[in-house]
Each structure stands twice: as structure tokens, then as C-alpha cells.
């Protein structure tokens, strides 16, 4: 079980800020494929991962990173702070 978090328009498209996901995905990309296969709203949110960023346990990471040992995955658009 991992916590999956969504922010900004990713959160809006998927329709929730956070959920627990039962998965055996090996990488972030595998998790994205699993989620996209669930429902149209996930497929829409993840349709272009080049427009997305991912953090694993609150550190920026990559879509090909392994998920072993990870407890929290977050998906969001490029940041616009400052």
C-alpha cells in the first residue's frame, strides 16, 4: 500500500487529493500505467507525463525510478512558486 498524492490540475482532473493504492508496480511509469488503465480521468491526467513531475517520499524523482520501499508518491505539474 502506498499513498498517492495529486496537486494542482492533476488533483482537479483526477478529482481527489490523495488515495491509498495497492500496487506491485516496479517503477513510477508502471504505476502510471496501472492508474491510467483504471478510469478515463486518470488516463486524461497522465496522458502526457512530460508535462508532469513526480516526487517519491517528498524528493523530486523520475518516471523510470523504482518504487521499492517508497511510501508516498506525488504527481503534479511543473512548480510555479516564488
Amino acid at each position, binding site marked *: 500500500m502506498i499513498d498517492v498524492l495529486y496537486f494542482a490540475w492533476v488533483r482537479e482532473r483526477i478529482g481527489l487529493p490523495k488515495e491509498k493504492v495497492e500496487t506491485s508496480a516496479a517503477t513510477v511509469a508502471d504505476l502510471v500505467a496501472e492508474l491510467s488503465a483504471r478510469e478515463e480521468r486518470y488516463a486524461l491526467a497522465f496522458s502526457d507525463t512530460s508535462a508532469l513531475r513526480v*516526487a517519491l517520499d*517528498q524528493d523530486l524523482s523520475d518516471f523510470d525510478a523504482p518504487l521499492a520501499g517508497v511510501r508516498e508518491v506525488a504527481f503534479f505539474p511543473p512548480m510555479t512558486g*516564488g
Partner: protein
Amino acid sequence: MRIVVQEPAFDIGAETAAFASGRHDMGAIVTFTGVVRDDTGTLDHLEIEHYPGMTERAITAIADEARTRWSLGDVLVIHRHGCLAPGAPIMMVATCAPHRADAFAAAEFLMDYLKSRAPFWKKEVTRDGAAWVAAKDADEDALTRWKG
């Protein structure tokens, strides 16, 4: 070092005065304040979303990196989230250093990294609707000057 992520307004003058006070060995103090800008006069407010936990962690990492790169006396970062009206201060950064070049470089470095590496997202709410602010290529490009 002080890192603050909060919803309420902060007092630029009071923060600047507190940061600057008692610096006998620091000749240079630089502050940057970001303000909600309304170019067109149509902005009702800005909504700033963030990732609690990661935000503090990311800002601390950026500030630590600045302290390894330059000879700094201290670093302050304040960043707000929630609903902000036009003209409201969004965030501020302050640095102090024995010499001005270090204080300026560190403040610009902090701003460049906060823009694209701290998990905040801005949504502009105007009378015509709401839209997420898109990241600018220029902001990503700004990071290249600190590399290599």
C-alpha cells in the same frame, strides 16, 4: 536559518528589520519580496497550493545549498499559500553576507530554485474564470547559470 511556510500575511518591514538587526560582522543584507501582480486589472485573487512536508524539505535543501556555495551569515525564506489578493506579498527571501556579491548571488539563487523546485502551484482567479499558471521555460533556463 529560518524557513516559514504559512497562510497568513507577513510584515515585510518587520521581517526585514528583524533580519537586519545586530549584524556586526555582515556588511551586506539583500531582501527579495514577491508580490501578487495584476497587469490587466482583471485578477480577483491568486490561489497558491503547496505540498505540506515536501515544501519545507525542498526549501531547506535549497537554502542549505546556498550556504555551501556562498559565505552567508544567515538565510530567511517565507512563502505563503492560500488565497492572496493583488498587491499582497507572496513570499520573501533575505540573505546576509560579509560582502555584497555573495548576498546578491545567494538571493538570486534562492529565487531561481524556489520558482521551479519548491512544490507550489499558482492559480489565477479572474472575473472570467480560473487558470493554473504555467511554468515558464525562462524559469527553468534560469537554473542553468548555477550549474557546471
